[in-house]
């Protein structure tokens, strides 16, 4: 599993020991929504799906919580990033499936239909 479970809810402090670029990389790898806190005090929440630290003006790209975008925001506009959304890669559905299978085996009964994972998406 990733370190997503640790990142969920994380509010990093950007400073000498933790750079914005490092936090951006964590946010890029995170499979949940994040909230960008901008230098002007505004906030943007969404899924950060791309970043380019090597571009002449380094930027991130995200789709907001309504799915609108992609919004492109330069690194220099960002104060910090909060990991506000649920980590969708936390593996809960698979763990639930395994538990259901094990329980069915233990009870020695047919488990048809008892352990199906919920469909993804909406």
């Amino acid at each position, binding site marked *: 599993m*990733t370190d997503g479970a640790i990142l969920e809810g994380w509010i990093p402090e950007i400073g000498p020991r933790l750079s914005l670029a490092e936090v951006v990389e964590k946010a890029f790898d995170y499979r949940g929504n994040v909230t960008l806190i901008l230098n002007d005090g505004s906030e943007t929440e969404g*899924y950060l799906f791309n970043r380019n630290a090597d571009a002449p003006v380094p930027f991130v*790209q995200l789709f907001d919580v309504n*799915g609108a975008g992609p919004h492109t925001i330069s690194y220099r506009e960002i104060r910090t990033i909060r990991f506000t959304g*649920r980590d969708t890669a936390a593996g809960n559905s698979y763990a639930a499936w395994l538990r259901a299978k094990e329980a069915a085996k233990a009870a020695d009964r047919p*488990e*048809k239909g008892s*352990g*199906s994972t919920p469909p993804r998406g909406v």
Partner: protein
Amino acid sequence: MSLPVSQMWAVASYVVRQKLAGRKRYPLVLMLEPLFRCNLACAGCGKIQYPAQILRKNLTVEQCLAAADECGTPVVSIPGGEPLMYPDIGRLVKELVARRKYVYLCTNAILLKEKLEAGLFTPSKYFSFSVHLDGLQDEHDQAVCRDGVYVQAVEGIKEALRRGFRVTTNSTLFDGASPLRMREFFDEMMDLGVEGMMISPGYSYSKAPDQEHFLRTQRAHDLFSRILSNPKRRWRFNQSPLFLQFLMGKQEFECTPWGNPTYNVFGWQRPCYLLQEGYAATFQELLETTRWENYGKRSGNEKCRDCMVHCGYEPTAVNHTFGSWRGFRDTVAATVSGRF
């Protein structure tokens, strides 16, 4: 190999044209993901773990066609997500077929019978359903974490075949797979009447729910050798015999990450179908700005170390076939003899 002659000719002439043009890097199969939404949550899949607003998104048909035109591959594979949940799947396939692209619609087939009965598709030599089946009933239902899916998929396959569609299967193998059961599975698929089968080891997605059963290289060689070393004449595979030899450890190949470029709601995925290290706005940008030297076994990249997945190595096998006399000879020999 079970590919129709027209498809083999289309791929062969395309590859030769690329070589004559002196193109060092050329794509072979476009992996077109019009959505990430899926009606399953399989243990080994790292493709669908996204927040709701991303799972709700669809590419437009026009975006899909522009991507196909831009990269120009003779073959377009439509995975996802589940493509049969894409609202415009019928129109997308029709438009791609009109462009004479060989289209593989990769589906879990849960909705296949329903969509066929709705008249969404027309049989064509350019169009094939590629049904995801990771083995016989017990193994497949375990892999997709839901009972009954194998039976639904087989019903869908039968209906598609009855209506005159091309049908292939694609199977992902994980550690612990039984060679004997896989051979029984091949027999069963041939009995069903599918055109051909595709097999590949799973990629160790860091986001996949099950992290314990991905195959490492030597174990993959052992497994595929036991499955394929004494193949039955009746088995037909819809993939390069050199790739199957590679899976058995009989060919040394390097990855061709640009061979199966991936386009989805985020853009052109860097560097390949499996790794997500960023996105490019255009295919040209993907080709020109991706640091290709950072990928493949020789790069030392840990994420590539045990990868033997078809999307990276099948293009290598095809390139080898048309890039050397030895490759051509080995391909012909395997095709004629039916042995790998």
